[in-house]
């Protein structure tokens, strides 16, 4: 989902025009080629992700096609969410209880 979100890869808004998309893609490709700025990563709902020249070209191509762009617009713009709580038990247990009471391998 967000991994494939071409708007996030290019760092453009869902409402961006084709011209803006092309310009941003060219700029990013140049920055990646020169290794300047922070073009090497982009923010996503799953946290910062690496941005490669291939990903930029694929995202631009996807948004150039009206059909694919319409599909991408529907699911674009997901925001980060906090991880679900992991604590299930209210208290810690008796570590190594089986072994210490004579059960299982020494």
């Amino acid at each position: 989902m967000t991994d494939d979100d071409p708007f996030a890869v290019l760092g453009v808004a869902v409402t961006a025009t084709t011209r803006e998309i092309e310009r941003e893609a060219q700029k990013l490709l140049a920055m990646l080629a020169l290794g300047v700025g922070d073009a090497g990563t982009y923010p996503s709902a799953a946290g910062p992700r690496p941005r490669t020249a291939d990903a930029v070209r694929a995202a631009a191509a996807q948004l150039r096609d009206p059909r694919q762009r319409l599909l991408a617009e529907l699911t674009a713009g997901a925001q980060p969410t906090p991880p679900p709580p992991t604590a299930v038990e209210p208290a810690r247990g008796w570590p190594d209880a089986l072994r210490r009471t004579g059960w299982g391998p020494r």
Partner: protein
Amino acid sequence: MRGFALALALRARAALWRARAADRRRFVPLTLLLAIIEGGFIASVLTLAVTLLLLGAPIVALVLLALIAWLVVPHWLIETLAIPCGWHRAAWHLARFDPRGDAQTWPSLVAARAAARAGAPSDAVAWITGRLPARLDGAGIVVHALLAHGAGDRADARRLLHSLTALQAPGVDAQVIASEWLALDAAERGAWRELVDGIATWPATPLRYLLEAVAADRLGLPRAPGAALRWLRWLVAPAHRATWRYLRAAPSTRSTTTATTDAATAAPVEPAPTDARVAAATALVAAAQAPSPERAAAAVAAWREVLDDPAWLPAQLARAAALGLDPTAAVRTVGAARDGVIARLVQLTVTARAPLPAGDAGVAAAVRAGARARILDGLEIGFDRLHARVANEGGELAMIDEWREFLAVRDGYEAAVTPGGVELERVAYPHADTALGEWAVALWNRRRQHHVSHAITSWLFARAREVGDAAAVEHHGRNRALTIPDA
């Protein structure tokens, strides 16, 4: 006369041990009675020995003492020497003279404990499993569970021990071992609620009784035994040194719980996106990243807001036109976009085992239909595979693996049909009935595996009642009423 009284006391003690394990409601009075009998027994032995010595019959005294020691010592030797040292053969032979257990099952169970202590070496596993009866029963399952634990597969051991509840008569010895192991395992994981919930299922043993008191205290239950009663239970339980350390080091549960709750309350909450489409996209990503029934249901609900909105389709068609698509392509593309989202919601719903959404139209109906079809397809493939294996005589597995397969099929089926409720299960049940019914018959008739076959039939009977399949209820009810023959 006195010798006769001693023999009677020994027999009474053995009977009381077994009665105490069989019925937890009589645990406390029978434990007190056992203490009185054992105290009287020891006092009688000493008195008799001293009397005989004073009467000038030291040889008779020694013979009598040796005879009594032969009846008393095996259990002590098993617990303090054979099991800790991992001597499975010694444990097996000693257990044959231990009045605490059934002579048919106790030696294998004790030997498996000893072998597990030694890490379940392959020669010990072969030696012990070679002595199990060909017909798998409760004790056999527990032996395999203990050996699996010894080999490092704790999850398999836990699953096998829990599965004893599926048997009609697993046997007191097997239940006692399983009860104690599962209680310790739950305590180790801090699964105190699981331990308390097990009270209704598992027999009390001195160690489980102590752990139940600890669990009730940790959970802050209103009827939790106080500190004095907990220490009293500790006194009766084995492994004093190990349990003493835990009891002394036990942290205050209530403060831990409060801290957890406070931390959860204080955690920053992300503001929900105001745009319904962005909120739906966010919910979909969140559910895909950490699948859970709640997150999958939230994603479905969020997309219902978007896709079931009457304004959504015209807006998308207008947007497609603005992007330069002709009307036919626009309709097709918008439909494909909707189908793509629904396919992802179906995938999430099935993966997270979320309840199937209710609703006769729109996204809910589409997700429900898709998930239902996926679940039924998955079950059908599994049952077809099982059917093919059972029909093929060469496809027989070792009995413990047949049992493991039954547990996997049963758990998979229940997990799959639960989200769709009884409506989905009515469609799924006939597939289970055919495949597992044949399996149960083959196990009973062809392999004489009555315990396993009966467990499968009982499960089919319960599911048939759940879905209201009268013919299956009658059929499996008849088979279930069959008496399991003695070995």
